């Protein structure tokens, strides 16, 4: 039981990470109707910026702060130069154009930072596990990630549901023409939303970096997962992204935990060992396919928000 709680926390932590990526993705998708494969590149850029600034300032928090700013700027510049001409084009053009950007960013990062990759060292007090419940130890840093992301999610909720900008964002997600008709500066709104999405993605990259490793292409696989999240959650819906992120995080983790053992009951030990991870990777795609078959607009379509 205690073990299960620990694994649930692991699932939550993955879910929170996915949410940060998916939130930006779903907003950009919902409002600008843009499929952005380069979103994972912003995740990667955020991690590289943060790693550089942590190294320069010798402070974890300062590095994260500066990195966040840099990613925001990068996102805004990217939007103004490369993304704008893609608005109003069909999804195929988006896929192709941003696929090109993804290739570009991978090489760009290699040019600037070299091929070897970087690491972000945590403050030493983070290198420990704490007792969250009697008998349940959990890595402190992962706990910090869960809590920080929950705060970010709450702030995002307040921004979207309680402010004027948020009202425009919501209106944009359900009815694009209307926002234009209201005489709002659409260009500026688009740039801001893209910047916000970039910052969220970058933030995800930098908080994951100390656990993982800052490397080229780090955003690609997680990007596909984030896409799965927003499709399951319903495009344009922050609430959908939040719920779906947690579902995907939990299912992926539980699949990794229990499936290999389960498969070993039916197959030989070694066959189970390799079929298990493969099957658990399939789980979320199966989930997405099922959701699309039964609810082609996702669990929380933006219009019904």
């Amino acid at each position, binding site marked *: 039981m205690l073990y299960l709680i*620990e*694994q649930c926390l*692991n699932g939550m932590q993955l879910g929170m990470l996915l949410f940060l990526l998916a939130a930006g993705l779903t907003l950009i998708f919902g409002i600008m109707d843009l499929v952005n494969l380069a979103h994972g590149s912003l995740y990667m850029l955020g991690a590289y910026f943060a790693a550089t600034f942590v190294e320069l300032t010798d402070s974890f928090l300062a590095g994260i702060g500066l990195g966040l700013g840099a990613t925001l700027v990068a996102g805004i510049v990217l939007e103004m130069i490369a993304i704008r001409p893609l608005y109003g084009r069909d999804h195929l053009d988006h896929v192709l154009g941003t696929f090109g950007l993804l290739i570009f960013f991978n090489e760009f990062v290699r040019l600037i930072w070299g091929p070897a990759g970087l690491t972000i060292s945590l403050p030493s007090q983070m290198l420990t596990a704490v007792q969250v419940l009697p008998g349940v130890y959990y890595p402190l*840093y*992962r706990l910090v990630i869960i809590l920080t992301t929950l705060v970010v999610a709450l702030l995002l909720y307040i921004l979207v549901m309680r402010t004027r900008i948020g009202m425009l964002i919501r209106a944009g997600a359900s009815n694009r023409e209307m926002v234009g008709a209201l005489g709002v500066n659409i260009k500026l709104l688009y740039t801001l939303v893209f910047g916000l999405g970039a910052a969220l993605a970058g933030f995800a990259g930098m908080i994951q970096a100390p*656990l993982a490793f800052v490397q080229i292409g780090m955003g690609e696989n997680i990007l596909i997962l984030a896409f799965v999240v927003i499709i399951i959650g319903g495009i344009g819906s922050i609430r959908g992204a939040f719920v779906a992120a947690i579902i995907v995080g939990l299912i992926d983790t539980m699949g990794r935990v229990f499936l290999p053992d389960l498969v070993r009951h039916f197959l030989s030990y070694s066959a189970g060992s*390799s079929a298990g991870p493969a099957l658990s990777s399939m789980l979320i795609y199966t989930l997405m396919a099922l959701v699309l078959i039964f609810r082609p607009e996702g669990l929380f379509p933006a219009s019904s928000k």
Partner: protein
Amino acid sequence: MKRILLTTCAALALATAPAVAQQKTVKIGFVSTFSGPVAAIGNDMRNSFELALDHLGRKLGGLPVEVIYEDDQIKPEVGVQKVQKLIESDKVDFIVGIIWSNVLLASLKPIIDSKTFTIVTNAGASQLAGEMCSPYVFSTAWNNDQTPQAIGLYMNQKNVKTAFLIGPNYAAGKDMLEGVEATFKGKIVGRELTVWPTQLDFSAELSKARNAKPDAVFAFYPGGAGIQFITQYAQSGLKSTIPLYTAFTVDSLSLPRLKDLAVGIPGAQQWVRDLPNEANKRYVNDFRAKYKTDPSFYGSQTYDAAPLLDSVVKAVKGDLTKKDEMRRAAEKADFKSVRGNFKFGPNHIPIQNFYLQEAVKDGEEFRLKTVATIVENDQDKHWQKCKMPK
């Protein structure tokens, strides 16, 4: 520039080696990974090979050398294509390199079919040592399961009773875990294979390990994944409670990033930077002088390929059509390896010592250091499956 290099080399050869009848260059196709997250490994191998050529005066057996570097992008199908290009288009005399077991397995057929003389300097797929061995293919590395077998023995010495094994789900990963199981006498309480190379986060597996309460954990994660694994192992608080044993996980490429986290984690290796022989001292010192960092074991294996080829070209006096004589020459392993003693088994896989290495802090720098010799003259266990033509 290729042409310029060629002419310079040819001119040099003309001036210094009039003994060689044909003014031929030795063409080497070098396949490794120079892009993506593991480009560091490919660069280390290239640097070592270049250094070795420098040490040999840019010549093999008196003939000038041209090296064509090709990037396999860690993709087997790209690797195959590059190997085919080297054989068919560039018509190379030798192929050197290859990091990944799966790239090797994919490329082996065109290599064997075309009888291209090949030195594998890392990939240790057990098929190469067994049923897919070939008269013209040699390895200066090891077979995948040898290193973990050594670690298994070491764990026995350390009186470990129960162990939890974890590694990535691909040929090498499975070979590694089986290697430990082959020699470890205690009980295996858990065995996890993770998705390779995409899975970066090991939280669920580490929770499993904690839950299994083993005496020790064994891990194999090459390249960037090793840094991730060890970092997360420390963060989960396991490092202070359950000792970690590794193979190919801490190396001099990852050490500058892991720093303190790697200290005290034992690993097995057939080469360590401080092995006390002349060839090695020259290699490590000149490498540090030229590239300002320590070479890795990937580099050391690749460095060895150059003097080996030198001995082969010498033996046939530059006539690279005499494949069978070249093969006999290579089998003698008549060169000074940075590993000290070096000889080939009947399947062209080295028979060699395995050492225990640990990371230590040396002033401001972290270095790998030999702690003990675990096994001497170890031979892989697949050689009997190899039906090498005489």
